[in-house]
């Protein structure tokens, strides 16, 4: 596209969304604190672990006071929020580390996993979608579509266990989990790459059906439209028609999908990281939740919420760019 990007309206939309995000984040963190407080799990028991089974009540009460979980819900939330605004996200009780350290240590690995998986899903989904749309009802279309519907129903952790069973246990070609081999201490590119294959593939494939089905539908619809008929009439090559005309207009609904799949991706990563012992942020979320680690849980929820809001913003921006008829909301 050679036309100048509409920076002004785009910036205005981003600003408006950012303002809107502030109350959303506030409400979400309060929700997390409230749900965690209402959950039957006891943060002190979780902190003490097996030692708690032999600790005296006095010892446990002191821990409760030290961890600050004897405070009322609203006070705890307000304390957390005010210090979080100043950049202090508190200490994680389950990791025995400041929350900022936990996130810094793990964020990169999660982003690597999620980005690779997302790329796999988008590229593979688009490719297969175009091929399937070219001959609707053909063998490729029927195979891939039926697989896609099956995968849509298959939970990510189940796919993960299946992949471990097949590739790690039966074929023994890929490692079953972790970031590196058990005996290896240094994180090398080769090690990480081979350990990334299974989790990224599983996460990508669990997201694949939506992209595939959207592209297939979009391209198939576009192939029946006037511009494509016109292009064919002008004698353009099938390749140009398919990729230059049909795909471009068929891609539009997928831009929305990119935004709306982000929450699914995060949930999927949660399960996949747990199954593959991937040392990412999602695995920490599970631990934080079951241990009622308020500070860590709230910080991670803020991150997830921000990712979802960003995803939506991104897809709206892309949509606006791709289709000039769509304004940057008002």
């Amino acid at each position, binding site marked *: 596209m050679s036309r100048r990007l509409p920076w002004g309206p785009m910036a205005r939309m981003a600003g408006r969304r950012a303002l809107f995000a502030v109350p959303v984040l506030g409400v979400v963190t309060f929700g997390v604190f409230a749900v965690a407080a209402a959950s*039957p*799990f*006891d943060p002190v*028991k979780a*902190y003490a672990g*097996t*030692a*708690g*089974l*032999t*600790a*005296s*009540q*006095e*010892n*446990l009460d*002191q*821990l409760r006071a*030290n961890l600050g979980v004897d405070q009322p819900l609203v006070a705890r939330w307000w304390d957390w929020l005010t210090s979080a605004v100043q950049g202090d996200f508190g*200490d994680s*009780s*389950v*990791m*025995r*580390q*400041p929350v900022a350290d936990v996130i810094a240590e793990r964020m990169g690995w999660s982003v690597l996993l999620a980005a*690779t998986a997302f790329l*796999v899903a988008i590229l*593979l989904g688009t490719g297969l979608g175009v091929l399937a749309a070219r001959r609707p009802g053909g063998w490729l279309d*029927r*195979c*891939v579509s*039926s*697989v896609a519907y*099956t995968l849509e129903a298959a939970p990510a952790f189940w796919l993960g266990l299946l992949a*471990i069973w097949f590739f790690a*246990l039966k074929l*023994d070609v890929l*490692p*079953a*989990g*972790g*970031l590196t*081999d*058990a*005996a290896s*201490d240094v994180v090398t*590119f*080769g*090690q990480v*790459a*081979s350990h*990334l*294959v299974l989790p*990224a*593939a599983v996460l990508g*494939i669990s997201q*694949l059906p939506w992209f595939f089905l959207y592209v297939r539908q979009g391209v198939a619809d576009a192939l029946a439209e006037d511009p494509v008929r016109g292009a064919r009439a002008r004698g353009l090559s099938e390749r140009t028609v398919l990729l230059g005309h049909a795909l471009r207009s068929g891609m539009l609904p997928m831009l929305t999908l990119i935004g709306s799949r982000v929450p699914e991706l995060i949930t999927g990563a949660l399960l996949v990281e747990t199954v593959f*012992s991937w*040392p990412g942020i999602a695995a920490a979320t599970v631990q934080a939740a079951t241990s009622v680690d308020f500070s860590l849980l709230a910080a991670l929820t803020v991150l997830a919420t921000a990712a979802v809001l960003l995803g939506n913003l991104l897809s709206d921006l892309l949509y606006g760019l791709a289709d000039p008829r769509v304004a940057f909301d008002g």
Partner: protein
Amino acid sequence: MTARSIRVAVAATLATALSLTAAACSNPDSAKSGSGSGSTSAVVGIAYEPDSLSPLLGYGKDGNSKIFDGLLALDVDMKLRPALAAQLPEVSADGLTYTYKLRQGVKFSDGKAFGAKDVVFTYRTILDEKTNNPSRTELDAVKDVTAQGEDTVVFTLKYPYAPFAQRTVLPIAPEHIAGRQDVNTGAFTTEPVGTGPYVLTKWSKGEKLSFTANPDYWGGAPEVKKFTMAIIKDDDVRATRLRSGDLDGAILPPNLAKGFADDKAKKTYAANSYDYRTVTLPTNNKVAGDTAVRRALDVAVDRQAMVDAILNGSGKPAYGPVPTDSEWFTKGTERTHDLAAAKKILDEAGWKPGKDGVRVKDGVRATFPLWYLSGDKLRQEHALAYASDAKKAGIDIRTEAGTWEVIEPRMKHDAVLAGGGSPADPDFDQYTLLKSSLAGDGFNNMAWYDNKAVDAAIEAGRKSGDKAERKKAYDTVQRELVKNPGYTFLTHIDHLYVVDDRFGALTTQVEPHDHGLASGPWWNVEKWSTGNTGDAKQ
């Protein structure tokens, strides 16, 4: 499309998709590094991961912490030997003062010297109530700890406490590092520095702990230069990775350990333990609190059948917290399985069978709930076997599963299938299990057991410094438990480990209920021999 062709298509597409992504992501240069091939490295699979590596927060409190040393340590026969102390402590005649002379010339792995100030710092920090150490209760007896010069540390106790020396296997942290940061969340909790045989190189949480040998270790540099503990929660995955050679050793449940019995290159070790499973019979329950019911249940239960069926023979019947092969066990307190005797006890006490076979006394039906931790298969099987044995004697036990959050508020009235066990001293289990003043204190004395004779005996057992006197006291406790069993002890469980043969013949200690990373044949990995002689050094 037929079901078959769909299946084929599904498999084909899935395989293509996966291999495509595999090709896209993998680095062609990456060679899978062969693990465990070097004879100076060892990788073991464990099911448990510590929450923190700081001794100040409870890490390694029972010894074998690898990174640290205590003042004392336990040898293979669970006898105390000096570690950071130069010799066993001198105990004053009243049992209130313990004096430790420290080993000279010991350095932390960062090169700084170890001294009395580190010992004082460690104990004082743990005793500080601002420190989030859930095991602080274990040091309740300590009144103060002071340094006398550079090489002597003196502990003064609030009351005479015979097993105190056993508590001083607790690892010592360096004041010059841990003292300068937040004790609860500082970097020391994940990047520890100690005097121990190994230095932590990396802790990848949820994945593994990697250690490298400390070349300047005061006890001699370990031959196993690289030691890795892979944290694998799933038993099947651990067994598979052991079989594939990724691991050199692993802890396994009996059914999976059996699979390695014919493997010539691997040895199976069964570690005896104090790890008991018991049923609490709460004093406040009208049925379970009745002495006749307790005694009847004690003989109605078929412990050997539980060992054979539930533990595949890897364990022993338990009659109290002290295992039958311990020197502290009171011979003659074994109970034989005798259903007729159980029925007789109940008949004589006035518990008469009702129409449905369940006994009744004064309008009270002989029935109570028994809780077990949901998801714990071992406890579930014990609970079901117990209920089924009780049923034959006419006592109706309803088993129910729950998490500790559900179980804890009910412990005062409902029976619980509990577990525990600390081998170092008989006081550790018996005091917290049986002392009436600890009834309902956290998870201590869950049965609200209340027996004056037992109270007096366990008090005498912890106060007296004389071993014969202590033995007499614990004999009294065990005999009282026959007369009024507030708990039905069921089994002591052996812990099974499978380890590669190339490390030679290894040993195990008597293990506690929490068999974390300190247990198993690798309790003394620093003494393992990697030579071809086939014998591990003791």
